[in-house]
Structures are given as C-alpha cells and as structure tokens.
C-alpha cells in the first residue's frame, strides 16, 4: 500500500469485492431499484417488537445472506467492520453479536459504509484473508432518535431527506477476480456552518467536493476517467450544490455523477422530498445495484463517495453547525 499525493492510497494487491447482499424495507421496495435487492421486507417491524430490534435483524440477515452467497464460511472471515446511526451503534453490535467474527464498530454517520470498506480493504491488504463490512439504517428508529415521533402530524421541509430502511453488506478477499478496490481517499471533516438538520445535503456537499477534488489532484485522474461517480446520500439539493461547486473549481462531472439518495426513490411518486439518506442508503444501493452493474461489466470504473453529517440531536438543539465528511473508494474491474 502506498500513499499518493496528500491523502490518497493505492493498494499493491487490490482486494476483491467477492460478493454483496442487501435487504431493504417496504418503501425502498416500491422504488426504482427494487429488483436489485436480495430481499424486501413487508413491514417495518419484520416480526420484531421494536424498530431497533428490526434494524438489528435487518443487518444480521444481510450479513448471513452475503456469507451464504459468497460461499466463504464465517470462520474464514478474519474481521468485520459495521456501523449504523443509532446511539452507540447498537443495531450493528446487537445484530452481529452472535456472528463470532472479530468486530470493529464504525461510526461515520451516513459515510459508514465506505469507511468500513476502506478499513476492510486496508486490513485485507495488511493481514486478513477475508473481511466483511456492513451498515444499516431504519427510517422509524432514525426519526425517533433525530426528529419527531412518527405519528406527529407535522410537515417535512422540501430539503429534508428520507432515511432508508435497509442494510448492505460486502465481503472483501485477498484473492479474487474483481471488482477490485484500487484506491481510497479518506476524507477530512469540512464544516461550512450549515445548522439546518433538515438540509443535510447542503451540510455534506462541501465535504464531498473536498474529497473529490483531492482525489483528482492526488491521483492525476479526471472526471472522465470514471464511468460513474456516485455520492452516498446528498439528495437533490446536495447534487445541485455539488455540480455548482465542482464547475466553479473547473471540473465538469455532470454526465457521470449521480447520488444513491436520488437513485433509490422515485421523487414524484414516493414523496421523499430531497431523496434518501442514512447508512443503509449507500450500502443497499451499492450492494444491490452498483455491484451488480460492475459484475455485469456495464460499469468498469466506479468512484463511490459516501457522505456523512457528523451531528447528533443534542448538538442540533445546542445550535451547533453540522460538520460533514466524505470518504472515497475507487472500484475497478
């Protein structure tokens, strides 16, 4: 592994993404990507008593699915990285407590999936034969923790995003035939002073642009090198901001840039305002849709940049601004 430029790293023997799995909720199942997911659950509880338990079950079953699909027994997986949005990451730790694989809990808000993939890739290069990463989010448990009770009759602002109910999981391996994780660009925290918790896209867009620009400068690549540049969950508001900022920096990414939060829902039919968000958004869209596109070789070079808003409900109430972060991984065949 070697450092390129300021903050990018390339792998000497790039780890392969062996397989991915995703499970999503009922609303996501009505979205445009429904046919790509491994399982769509019928209701938000999925037979559990609480939303938190349901989220744990989603991540647990997603991990079981990916292990079954990959054919790699869990005893041969050296470590796993997982995260979610609930306080102290209980969904992933409760969901994976019976897994008996060495566990690293990861928090990067909605950037957790790519953060996990980066760390798993580093471990795979360094010592591990196989590694696993998984992240999840749940609309109901996230609303409960960050906003208002679900039954409260209020109106959501147009810039707000809809937390995805779902999880995605991937297994990385030292040996394989691709798709490979060839480079990573871990992001810096960028805070441009946005305080509106209902406008996460605007809070995270500067971090995304920072990581993307740094990636281009470090690697000497340009936007046209990639078949697709996909952000985690900036939504419609964030996407427009990104296009403006990047063009002011002299990069034209209009033709190959899109966002997981935009891809997962149908804005007009599903009333999701600015699009999807949450750790499960990037995770399920990558594991469900993008990975299959890579495997089918419809897409050969993908830059996946998951974005996160590093705040909690206390910091918002105390009037703090929202620091954003974005981690990038370059996935190639």
């Amino acid at each position: 592994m070697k450092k390129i430029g300021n903050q990018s790293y390339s792998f000497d023997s790039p780890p392969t993404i062996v397989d991915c799995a995703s499970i999503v909720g009922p609303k996501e199942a009505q979205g445009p990507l429904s046919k790509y997911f491994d399982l769509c659950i019928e209701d938000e509880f999925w037979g559990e008593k609480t939303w938190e338990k349901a989220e744990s079950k989603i991540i647990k079953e997603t991990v079981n699915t990916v292990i079954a699909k990959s054919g790699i027994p869990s005893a041969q997986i050296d470590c796993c990285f997982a995260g979610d949005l609930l306080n102290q990451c209980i969904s992933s730790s409760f969901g994976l407590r019976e897994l008996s694989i060495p566990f690293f809990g990861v928090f990067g808000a909605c950037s957790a999936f790519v953060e996990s993939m980066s760390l798993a890739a580093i471990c795979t290069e360094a010592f591990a034969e196989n590694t696993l990463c998984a992240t999840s989010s749940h609309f109901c448990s996230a609303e409960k923790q960050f906003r208002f009770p679900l039954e409260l009759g209020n109106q959501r602002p147009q810039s707000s995003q809809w937390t995805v109910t779902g999880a995605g999981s991937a297994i990385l391996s030292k040996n394989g035939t691709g798709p490979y994780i060839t480079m990573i660009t871990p992001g810096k925290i960028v805070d441009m002073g946005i305080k509106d918790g209902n406008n996460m896209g605007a809070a995270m867009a500067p971090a995304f642009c920072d990581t993307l620009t740094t990636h281009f400068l470090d690697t000497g690549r340009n936007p046209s090198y990639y078949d697709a540049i996909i952000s985690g969950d900036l939504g419609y508001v964030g996407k427009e901001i990104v296009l403006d900022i990047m063009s002011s920096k002299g990069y034209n990414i209009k033709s190959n840039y899109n966002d997981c939060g935009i891809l997962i829902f149908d804005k007009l039919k599903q009333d999701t305002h600015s699009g999807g968000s949450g750790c499960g958004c990037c995770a399920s869209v990558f594991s469900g849709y993008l990975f299959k596109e890579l495997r089918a070789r419809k897409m050969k070079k993908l830059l996946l940049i998951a974005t996160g808003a590093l705040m909690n409900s206390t910091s918002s109430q105390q009037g703090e601004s929202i620091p954003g972060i974005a981690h990038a991984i370059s996935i190639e065949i």
Partner: protein
Amino acid sequence: MNPLESKQTYQQYVDKKSPNSPIIKNCFNAFWVGGLICTIGQIISNICKERGFDIATSSTIVSIILIGISAFLTGLNLFNKIGKFAGAGSLIPITGFANSIVSPAMEYKSEGYVMGVGGKMFTVAGPVLVFGISASILVGIIYMIFATESITLV
C-alpha cells in the same frame, strides 16, 4: 462564483438553492381544514347548548370530543396524514395538542410504561404547557395588581 468562499456566502447560496415549501397551497389547505375543525367544534357546541348545557360546559364537551377524535385518529395512523396535508390547520386547534401528546406516548411505549410512555409523553407538548401556564400566571398577576371594576377578562 465559488459558493465556498466563506461560511456566509455559502449560507446565502444554500438559502437560494434550497427549494421552498409550496406556501400558497399549504396556507389554503391549512385554512379550510382548520376552518372545518372549528366548524365541527361549533356544531358540537350548538348541539350541547340545544340540550340545555351552559356555555362553559358546552366548551368543555367540545374540547373533550375533539381531543378524543384526534387521539383516536393518531392511534389509527391517520392524523399524521391529515397533519402533513393541513399543517397548522390541524396543529393549532386542540386536535394538534392531543396529537402531540399521543404520538410520543405511542412512539416510546417500547421503553416501558413508566419511563417510556410516562416520561416521554410530553416531549413535544411540554414547551407549550410550560410557556402556556407561565404566561397565564403572569397575566393573572398583572390582573391581580391592576384589577379594577373597569377591567374584565372574560
């Protein structure tokens, strides 16, 4: 222009870029739904008066019935849909107040009846109660100090 020049320019840029709520549509819906709720209240009040109740008792009966309906609709997962459609129209009348107490009670039931339902029931309505009661005490004190024959609070 680079929107990231400073925090201030970015905030201004974001304000311009973020979509606004459809304010005319929202106001219209709030107006007629709010009006409808108040009309229902008035009808109940008139029926009560017809049956021989005095004004104060009739008003209490109206409140009880509207709160009951609102709490019931909240439990059926319907009030949030009305609230999304009508906004302040369903939130400002007493129906909104009932909804703001019942919805956290339902949400936090998973944390038990004492610390969940009991402890979290007033998370949304709490500020309204605190400041509503404080304001009424303040007005009461002012009234007590300046109370003369000429001032009457209905």
